[in-house]
């Protein structure tokens, strides 16, 4: 997933939680970048017809942007689910964030063939936990006596 896809995914999630245009500040915060960097990438997304930026209001994804954002979110869910369920990584969110830039969509698609992703993906993504809301159920059960 490239940087543009990471931005699209973030804008999509922020737009959803703010129920309207995503403010540049929220986007920058969510990605851990400076507002200047966020503005620069938003400009590039605008040039490519993937987002629209209205001054003082924020960023709204175009239809093409939404399609790309949902694909990116799905790839992210695949990486998270793969790390959590196949490799049993405890802090799978942090690792997924690290790895998403290095894992290509075609590789994610192949990993998807061995994980049990839900049909509603990526709508099941929960920004609060930065993870798929269905993931807990699918995760390897923890044996209480070992805790």
């Amino acid at each position, binding site marked *: 997933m*490239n*940087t543009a896809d990471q931005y699209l995914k973030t804008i999509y999630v922020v737009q959803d939680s703010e129920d309207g245009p995503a403010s540049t500040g929220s986007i920058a915060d969510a990605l851990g970048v400076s507002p200047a960097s966020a503005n620069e990438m938003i400009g590039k997304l605008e040039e490519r017809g993937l987002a629209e930026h209205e001054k003082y209001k924020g960023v709204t994804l175009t239809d093409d942007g939404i399609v790309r954002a949902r694909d990116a979110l799905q790839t992210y869910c695949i990486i998270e689910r793969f790390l959590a369920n196949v490799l049993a990584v405890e802090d799978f969110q942090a690792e997924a964030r690290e*790895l998403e830039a290095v894992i290509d969509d075609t*590789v994610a698609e*192949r990993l998807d063939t*061995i994980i049990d992703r839900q049909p509603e993906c990526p709508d099941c993504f929960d920004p609060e936990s930065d993870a798929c809301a269905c993931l807990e159920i699918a995760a390897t059960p923890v044996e209480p006596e070992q805790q």
Partner: protein
Amino acid sequence: MVAVSVSQRVASDDQLARLLQIGIVLEEVVEARAHRHYRQLDAELDAEVETLLADAAEESADHRERLEALIDGLGVDSVPFDEIESLVDARYGRTRPEDFDDVLYDQLCNEETAYKFYDDLIEAIEGSDAAFSVDREALLATLTTIRDEEAEGVREVTEVMERR
């Protein structure tokens, strides 16, 4: 695809180990699926496809061993093959490939994905100035050999598909 400059770099031993583990899983998926397809098509064997699948399974097992040697040097465990095999079986337990073309197409996707994975990984390592616990030259040499074998695999499957 949007062309942007990205810093896709491998920054640490842990990240490298995780990516190598993913490589192992990709190889295991190829191996398990090739075995599975081979078994399912057993009734009407086609010598060319049979050889292709057997070679693919053997090559994946070899790649897996080489990746395991690398992650061993990083002090990380491999991913047990039987675990991946059972995941592949669970997912494909109820489906069968329609015909040889399905099997070949699947094999082509496997080889192309593996090639893309190693190519990106090599680029990400080359773009990083991190010091790894394993010898960088040996690491890149191993990954380059594996990547080139995947490219050869893509060529072989394509040739078989074109002849049919």
